[in-house]
C-alpha cells in the first residue's frame, strides 16, 4: 500500500491487530472523599441531643444576627422556620390574659395573632416576589419571622412594666419601648430584604414590611391586662 492510501485511512495501522489479543489491565477505586461525605449527611447514628442542639444553635445564631443586623447572608442561606414559630407562639401567648375574661371584645385571640403574623408574612412575601424579588418564598418568611424578635422582647418589657406601674408613666415607657423595637424590626428586615430587590422598587417592598410591624406594634401597645 502506498503512503497516501495509508494516510487516507485512519487507524490504518491497526487493521492487522485483533482486539481480543490485547489484555487490558488496571484497577477501579472510588475516590476517598466520598465515604467521608456519606458520613456527614448520615445523621442517623448521632445522639438525639446532638441533633436538637444543632438546630437550637442555628436558631440562636440567627437571633444574634437579628440583634446586630448587618448585611450578612446567614439568615438567607440556611433558612429555617423554627425561630419564627417560636416567636409567634410566644407573642400570641403573651398577648393573652388581657381583658379576655370579661367579654369577647377583649384582646386579640391566639388565633388572630397567629393568622395576622403568618398571613401577613405570606402576603408580604408574595408581594416582593411579584415585584421581581430574588429571594425564595421560605427565605422571605424566615427573615420576616426572625425580625419579629425585637417586638417580642418589647412585649415582655411591656408586661413587666404593666405589673409594676400603671397610668401615664407606664404608657409613656411602653410607647417608647414599642416604637424603638418597631423601628429596629423594620430596619433589620430591610437590611436583609433590600438587597434582593432592584433599586427602583425598594420603597414598594419596604412599605408593606413597615405596615406589618406597625400593626404588630399596635397590638402590643394596646395590650392592657
Amino acid at each position, binding site marked *: 500500500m502506498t503512503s497516501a492510501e495509508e494516510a487516507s485511512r485512519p487507524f490504518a495501522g491497526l487493521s492487522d491487530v485483533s482486539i481480543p489479543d490485547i489484555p487490558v489491565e488496571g484497577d477501579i477505586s472510588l475516590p476517598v472523599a466520598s465515604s467521608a461525605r456519606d458520613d456527614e449527611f448520615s445523621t442517623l447514628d448521632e445522639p438525639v441531643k446532638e441533633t436538637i442542639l444543632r438546630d437550637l444553635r442555628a436558631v440562636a445564631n440567627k437571633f444574634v444576627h437579628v440583634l446586630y443586623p448587618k448585611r450578612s447572608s446567614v439568615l438567607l442561606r440556611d433558612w429555617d422556620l423554627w425561630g419564627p414559630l417560636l416567636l409567634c407562639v410566644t407573642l400570641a401567648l403573651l398577648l393573652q390574659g388581657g381583658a379576655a375574661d370579661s367579654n369577647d371584645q377583649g384582646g*386579640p385571640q391566639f388565633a388572630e395573632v397567629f393568622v395576622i403574623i403568618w398571613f401577613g408574612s405570606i402576603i408580604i412575601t408574595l*408581594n416582593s416576589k*411579584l415585584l421581581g424579588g430574588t429571594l425564595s418564598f421560605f427565605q422571605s418568611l424566615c427573615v420576616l419571622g426572625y425580625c419579629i424578635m425585637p417586638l417580642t422582647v418589647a412585649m415582655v418589657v411591656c408586661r413587666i412594666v404593666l405589673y409594676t406601674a400603671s397610668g401615664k408613666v407606664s404608657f409613656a415607657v411602653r410607647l417608647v419601648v414599642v416604637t424603638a423595637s418597631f423601628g429596629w424590626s423594620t430596619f433589620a428586615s430591610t437590611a436583609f430584604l433590600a438587597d434582593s430587590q432592584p433599586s427602583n*422598587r*425598594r420603597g414598594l417592598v419596604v412599605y408593606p414590611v413597615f405596615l406589618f410591624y406597625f400593626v404588630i406594634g399596635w397590638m402590643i401597645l394596646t*395590650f*392592657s391586662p
Partner: protein
Amino acid sequence: CEHFLFPYIQLDFEEAANLMDANRDVVTISIGDEDLKAKRQGPAGGFPPDVADDDPLGSDDKTELLAGQKKSAPFWTFEYYQAFFDVETHHVKERIIGSMLPWPGKNFIQVYLRKNPDLYGPFWICTTLVFACAISGNISTFLHKFGSSGYKYTPEFQKVTIAATAIFTYAWLVPLGLWGFLLWRNNKILNLVSYSFMEIICVYGYSLSVYIPAVVLWIIQVEWLRWCFMVVALCVSGSVLVTTFWPAVRDDNPRVTIAVIAIILLHYPAILIFFCMSLPVCFWETNAADGIKLVFFGETLVNGNCDHAC
C-alpha cells in the same frame, strides 16, 4: 380581498373588511380609543393595507398589538400576575398624588396609568385604609371615653375584620359592576372610550387613597371638623372618578349619563355612613333607630342617657 381556496373563509374576511370600512371614520376621531382599535384589529390582523390606512395612530396600533402580545401568559401562571406589578416607586407616588389632586382636564387613566394599570396600589391602599380605620376608631373611642368612670379599654379587633370585608368588597365589586355596565353600553352604542377592568380597579383603588388622611384625622374630637374632612375627601375622590368616567359616558343617552354620574357620586354617602358606624362614636349594642340618630347627630348612649360626643 385576496382569493382563497375555501369560499367560506373568503366570506368571513369580507365581512370583517366591511365592518372595518364602516367604522373607519368612527375609529379615528378620539384619542381615547387606542385599545379599542387594537381589539378590533386583533382578529383582522392579516390585512396590511388596512393597518397602514389608519395613519394618525398607525404606529400606536402596532405598539398596541405588540404590547398586547407580551401579556399573554395564562391566568394560572405567576407571570400573568407579575405583569400587574410592573411599576416603580415613583410611579406609585405620582399616581397617589394625582388621585389626591384632581384637575378638571386630567383623566386619571390617561395621564397616570398610561396603559400600565397595577394591582400594587389598590391592594396596599385598601389594606392601609383598613388598618387606619381600625386604629383610628380605637383611638377615638379611647379619647372619647377617657375620663368616664368604669371604662375599660379594649382593642376591638372585630372592627378590622368588618372594615376589611367592606373595603375590599367595595374595591372589587363596584369596578366590576361599572365595567360590566360600560361593556353593555359599548355594545349598544359603539362608544369610543373603553377602559379595561384592571384600569377601573386601579382608578377606584387609588381614589380611596384620599380617605386615609381623613380617617386618621378622625381622631380629633371636634365633630364639625371631622365631618368637614370627610366631605372634602368625598369631593376629591368623587371628582377623580367623575373626570375619569365622563369621557366614557358623555356620548350616551343623557338620562343614562346622568344616572351613571349620579351613582358614582351618590354611593359615597353610603360609604360615609359605613365609616360613621364603624368608627365608634357609638356602642355596638345600640339598635337601628338609635343608629340613625347616632350617624346624623353624633350622640352616644352611655347607660341609657344621651351624651353629646364633644
